[in-house]
């Protein structure tokens, strides 16, 4: 198996003296294991006598150049960091969906069944005021959208559900919503 097959790719730094392998290893280990960026002074303390901190760091940085991890100088000292280009591949987004507040869910359901409808119509149906906040939540979630205006005094906005609403609830079309009559199959009989 080939190991490091190309000595000519890694240019042996010309003029500058190569640091000892032990100095390189110590600097690498210390920066790796430290919880905070390692100040130059701390590196100087741990390195063997006669090693130049800058030279060691330069050699270490060269070793890590182009790799998955890079040596970077940040406020306070030296630190290893993941190569920036790998971030997107390593990022793991964990979805923690929230529950839609009850009022918002109710309003959404009413709009779904009675669209297009105006805000006063929603309020009349729910028998209570509809807060702007609730409307905003549904708008931001892309579940409802304005669908023109009603030809009535004040020309109020008509609201309806979006195609994202259908996708979110796994519906091919609005006609897949259970019929109201089926939902209310056994209405509470008023005695």
């Amino acid at each position: 198996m080939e190991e490091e097959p190309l000595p000519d790719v890694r240019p042996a730094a010309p003029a500058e003296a190569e640091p000892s392998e032990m100095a390189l290893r110590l600097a690498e280990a210390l920066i790796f294991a430290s919880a905070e960026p390692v100040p130059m002074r701390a590196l100087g303390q741990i390195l063997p006598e006669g090693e130049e901190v800058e030279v060691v760091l330069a050699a270490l940085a060269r070793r890590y150049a182009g790799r998955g991890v890079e040596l970077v100088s940040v406020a306070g000292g030296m630190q290893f960091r993941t190569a920036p280009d790998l971030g997107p591949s390593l990022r793991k987004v964990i979805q923690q969906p929230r529950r839609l507040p009850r009022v918002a869910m109710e309003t959404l359901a009413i709009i779904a069944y009675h669209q297009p409808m105006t805000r006063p119509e929603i309020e009349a149906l729910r028998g209570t005021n509809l807060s702007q906040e609730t409307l905003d939540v549904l708008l931001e979630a892309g579940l409802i959208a304005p669908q023109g205006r009603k030809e009535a005094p004040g020309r109020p906005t008509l609201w309806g559900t979006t195609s994202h609403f259908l996708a979110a609830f796994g519906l091919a079309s609005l006609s897949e919503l259970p019929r109201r009559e089926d939902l209310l199959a056994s209405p509470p009989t008023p005695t």
Partner: protein
Amino acid sequence: MSEAASSEQLLLRLEGFEGPLDLLLELARAQKLDLARISILALVEQYLAVIEGARAVRLELAADWLVMAAWLAWLKSRLLLPAGSPEADEGERAADVLASRLAVLEGLRAAALWLGARTLLGRDVFARGAPESFVEIDRSRFRLDMPSLLAAYLGALRRVQQAARYQPAPLTIWSVQDALGRLERLLGSLPDWVSLEQFLPEHLGQPEERRAALASTLLASLEMARDGVLWLRQEQPFGPVLVGRANGGTASTETG
């Protein structure tokens, strides 16, 4: 080193032992023998000597030290019996149990030493000191599903229905105005004295509606009587109120 001297030393260090078995193990090791071949009797005597010594200097001893001492004293008495008797056999078995317990403990102590001699993370080797996390928590989305949508819809409908149930049922109110009109209309065809109830509208379902209409009609008739359009007569308290046309029949001309 004499046995007594070593007991003295142990006494001084007694507090450093993790319980009686720990001390016994130490005593057994002092015998420089394989644990399988130690003399339990010698061990017992050493232990009892240490406890005696502790008592002599009034060292506070935890109960388990004394319990072990009592048990070992019992064991010693059995081990001193001539072999062959049931009591002696009992002692032999108890000695074996003690020996094997010590062996287990010795094994675990060796395991602890083995663990301690490992390359220890945080002592000999170190892991990344400043870990980076690539995990992002996205809480911008909503958990949406059909059941909760439908439940919310039904909830809203039910609430609205419930609110509606609290309103009094819409009554067919026969207003005074209605009664006035009806009285005026019917007054022309009035043959003679007629009960007020004859002027009530038809199709009155609820008893309350009938009572309300009766009240309205009475009020209307009182108003018309005041205007001299009709006369009212009641023969006795709570008897039927009779309505008659006033002379001249102005009512019909007035309403036209």
